[in-house]
């Protein structure tokens, strides 16, 4: 699978993999742009803490049971025809110890349970995320004065503010999962599942569909960009705008080709006659980091090859290979790079 320059390495501030692996192997610690244990927000933090509690308990129980097995094997023969009293002791242990541990696990889980469902009431920013085969439609609801703002595959949130996510699907079941921030929740036909999201530091977290949803389930990624309140406001204001097509002839030709080649059948560029609804909204495509739901970085070269051979880059996805002359494609790519 060809892809542009590593999005993820850049996101991750050039953290190389070798030390990560070393840490993993030695301490079992896990860091990564999609790691469950690298928490960028309170929900993931809570679950990460729960994990370390579960992990500690599991290690203790495991050492005890395997230790018993080893002792059982190594002990000198005690001569009894059956286990005698020992059997009864093992039975008592089995009846008493596990329930105590399980109660502790249950209580700890109960305490963390609100993480997924509760606590979204006070969220005043509502974002609808709708899953499609195989990309994400992202709608900011009721942005003042009263407009829904639509984008795709990239969710921006302000740091430190609790966001209410309303998850739904346009076709089959998907599952919204951004491990750095929150546990996953499915997107099920006929329902709206609600999840809250909060980041406590600026940065980019990667997410990926977690419910098998067909051929390209693999390449259904999204990015959650947490940024300062001001940066977020600026971004949102920009997203609200209609597209401004520069007057230069290349952009104008691009727009004409965009319509003529059938792109407009699926894609919308708000502010132009192209208002297709089957694919991601491209009004501000140039401001996004990836294309094809995270399959490649958003660069002019990748845009060109995506248009020409989307089926090679993401086989089976809904975007056909678009047969164009080089000049036409260049014009469309130029247009798209202007959609800031």
């Amino acid at each position: 699978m060809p892809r542009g320059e590593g999005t993820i390495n850049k996101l991750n501030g050039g953290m190389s993999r070798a030390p990560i692996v070393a840490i993993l192997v030695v301490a079992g610690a896990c860091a990564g742009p999609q790691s469950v244990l690298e928490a960028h927000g309170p929900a993931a933090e809570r679950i990460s803490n729960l994990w370390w509690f579960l992990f500690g308990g599991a290690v203790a129980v495991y050492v005890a049971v395997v230790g018993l097995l080893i002792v059982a094997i190594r002990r000198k023969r005690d001569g009894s025809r059956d286990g005698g009293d020992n059997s009864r002791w093992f039975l008592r242990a089995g009846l008493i110890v596990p329930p105590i541990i399980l109660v502790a696990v249950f209580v700890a889980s109960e305490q963390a349970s609100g993480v997924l469902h509760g606590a979204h009431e006070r969220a005043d920013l509502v974002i609808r995320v709708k899953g499609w085969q195989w990309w994400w439609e992202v709608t900011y609801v009721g942005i003042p004065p009263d407009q829904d703002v639509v984008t795709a595959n990239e969710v921006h949130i302000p740091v430190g503010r609790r966001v209410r996510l309303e998850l739904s699907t346009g076709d089959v079941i998907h599952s919204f999962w951004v491990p750095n921030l929150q546990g996953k929740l499915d997107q099920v036909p006929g329902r709206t599942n609600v999840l809250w999201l909060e980041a406590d530091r600026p940065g980019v977290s990667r997410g990926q569909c977690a419910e098998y949803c067909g051929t390209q389930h693999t390449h259904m990624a999204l990015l959650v960009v947490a940024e300062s309140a001001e940066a977020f406001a600026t971004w949102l204001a920009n997203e609200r705008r209609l597209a401004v097509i520069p007057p230069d002839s290349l952009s104008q030709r691009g727009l004409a080709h965009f319509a003529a080649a059938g792109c407009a059948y699926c894609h919308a560029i708000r502010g132009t006659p192209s208002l297709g609804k089957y694919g991601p909204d491209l009004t501000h495509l140039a401001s996004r980091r990836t294309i094809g739901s995270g399959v490649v970085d958003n660069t002019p070269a990748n845009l060109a090859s995506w248009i020409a051979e989307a089926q090679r880059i993401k086989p089976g996805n809904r975007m056909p290979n678009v047969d164009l002359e080089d000049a036409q494609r260049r014009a469309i790519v130029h247009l798209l790079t202007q959609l800031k």
Partner: protein
Amino acid sequence: MTTLQPTTSQVAEFERTWSEPRGFIGALKTINNIPVAHRYMVTAAVFFLVGGVQALLMRIQLGTANNTFLSPDVYNQLFTMHGTTMMFLVVIPFIEALASYFLPLLLGTRDLPFPRLTALSYWTYLFGGIFLYSSFVVGAAPDGGWFSYLPLNDKEFAPGINMDFWDIGLSVAEVSAIGAAAEIIVGVLRMRAPGMTFARLPIFAWAMLIVAFMLILAFTPLVVATAMLELDRKGLTQFFDVARGGDPILWQHLFWVFGHPEVYIMFLPAVGIVSHVVQTFARRPLANYKAVVMTMVATGVVSFLLWAHHMFVAGMSPNAMRFFMIASMLIAIPAGIQVLSWIATLWGARARWTTSLHFVAGFIVLFVLGGLTGVMVASAPFDAQVHDSYFVVAHFHYVLIGGVIFPFFAGMYYWLPKITGRLLSERLGKWNFWIMFVGFNVAFFPMHIAGLLGMPRRVYTYETGLGWDVANLISTLGALTLGFGVLLFVINAARSGRRGKEAGNNPWSSDTLEWSEESPPPSAQFVSIPVVHSRHPLWNEGETTQRDVVLTAVPARWRGALCVSLRGAKPESIVHMPGPTPWPFLMSVAFVFLFAGALIDSGILAVIGAAGTSVTLVGWFWPTKSERMAVSEMATHDSHGQPPLGIAGPLANGWWGTLVLNVVLATALGTIVASYLYLAPRWTDRTPVDFTEMLLAWLAVLTALVGAVAAWWGGRDRNLNTADRRRFGLSVGFMLDAGLLVLLWWLYAYHETSSTRSIDALGSFYYLMFVFQAFITLLHFVWTGVSLVWAWRLPRDIRGLAPASNVALLSYFLVLSWVTVAITLYV
């Protein structure tokens, strides 16, 4: 009971009676448990290797980032078929093979109660497996996941026949699993050796008995669910479409009500095997026998209460989540007691460290880890992160390979000498174990880490930079090592077949009855039925000499087996067992036509299949010469102090089989009603029930009720000379059944004309229940008709007693189902 010393010629005749027919045709007619079990094992082993190769192909694809070794379509087919194969074509059939082979030997009887059903199960499994794999040949292998979620796999999103292959192919597993359940339940309850009370029952038999009940309660909902899915896919119903009052979550409930108990259906036989291996090589009885049995029962019960933990992240109310969280955690308690009991048995026992026991120790080490991660994922908030990630892939492979496949290997090293008569190489066996053990951990441990790093399941590739590369590469190397380890077993088995040391009857000095027979056991098992006085007959009562036995070489001219009472295991009746017959094979061929007809929507193929099934069913129940021989012989030799011939009623196995059928049907009906109740709150615009329709439905209930009284009254008539009462009762029942069919048709026609809406979920339930009622009523109608014909043949031939008393049993269910339908749809 006295035992007459048999003459040599009588023994020879006995052996001839039980011998398998020769030649190619003979092979198709064979129904003896051992050859059928051989086939089961070999076929399951082949599918195991196939499923393993699929896993290796996937691991090679995932070995490096952005790999293009497999296309996404092929990868999706492979993971779908890997899961489907391992569940339905490997583990379940292998369990059936073990049951079929070892239950009669462990119980001290000559075969399982319904040998034709075993043969039918096997052929259906073989043809169904081939059917499923033929999808690769036509390039339409199932690719929607082994769990076939909706709407991804409805006609709109999966228009190809890929998932039809899956859906129809599953009937394979369903038929053979439910068949096996009937076999095991009646076998363990009825065909134990005299004296083998439940307190003396070998653990493996206990495990299988519990599993058999679970098979019914789990696989029957799967039958209903896959039928609903296929009807939806054919456009006849709409159960899962939100736009029409259905719900895709209903499918998830139905699937996991099957799917989670399935895990314990696979695990409990492993508990049985491990218990036998541990006590044999520790040379002492299993510690806490009673506790282990009770924990197995507890596992079976609780396993039905925790299915929805598979749906923790589908959107669930906090209270439901609490319930399923508690149930999921509870199940760790019985498993813990089992593990501690095995350790207690080994405690200071100076066990013999055979390969078999190595696999058991490896099992404990792996299974406990899988159990602990199981408790972790039972914690709903933590599950929200790792659900559908590689953490879960690691978890369930620790449970399924560590907890099921390792015990199977322990079982093979333990029992294969009994099967082949030759010992496996212990030296090669230990290599086999260590390479598998190391390979397994190298393959699956890193998956925990990949999961925690956020790697989801069912992705055909991943990009570099997410930190998943190293873990995946290690996993791939481990998987290849594990594959090599499995290959060593194949080599060891092949080698022992040719050059292995003779095993003798009891190479391990074990305690249970299978080791008292020759290795391999003869076609005519247990010429003398042993009488059992303890839980460990071979340890406490000597191996072959001076054992207390009954029925030596009796009956000789026909296949007969001894049935005992539920309590006390006292001899109760002798039952006639069928001999070689082609009908099971032919019926499964007819099934193939049905499968194919359903797959490609071919009416002709379906009609051929249905006609074939009917013809073979008639052939199946056609009276045989040996049955007549049994009746006449037992009628004249009744005075030897032998128990009577179990012809009809609770003395005959057919009656118990009918009881099991009732349980299966009730489970199916319950599944349909539960699905209806689940969806009902959604139908707010429902039109009120039509009065005429309601009247017709309750008239049907009344008819069924009167019919049942007549059947009960007639079926109780066991008089051998006159049969007026039975004839009268059956005649009334027969006519009322005809009336019921007319009523049902009327009801259907009336409903069709009065409901104007297009297909919706509510209408689909009417359709489904009508079809179900048609099936039950028609079955009862034909059965009553056949019994009636038999009743007229009295007193010349008393075999008609059995269908008459069995059909009475089915009458009660017929009433139940009509009442249920009337209440559900018309109240």
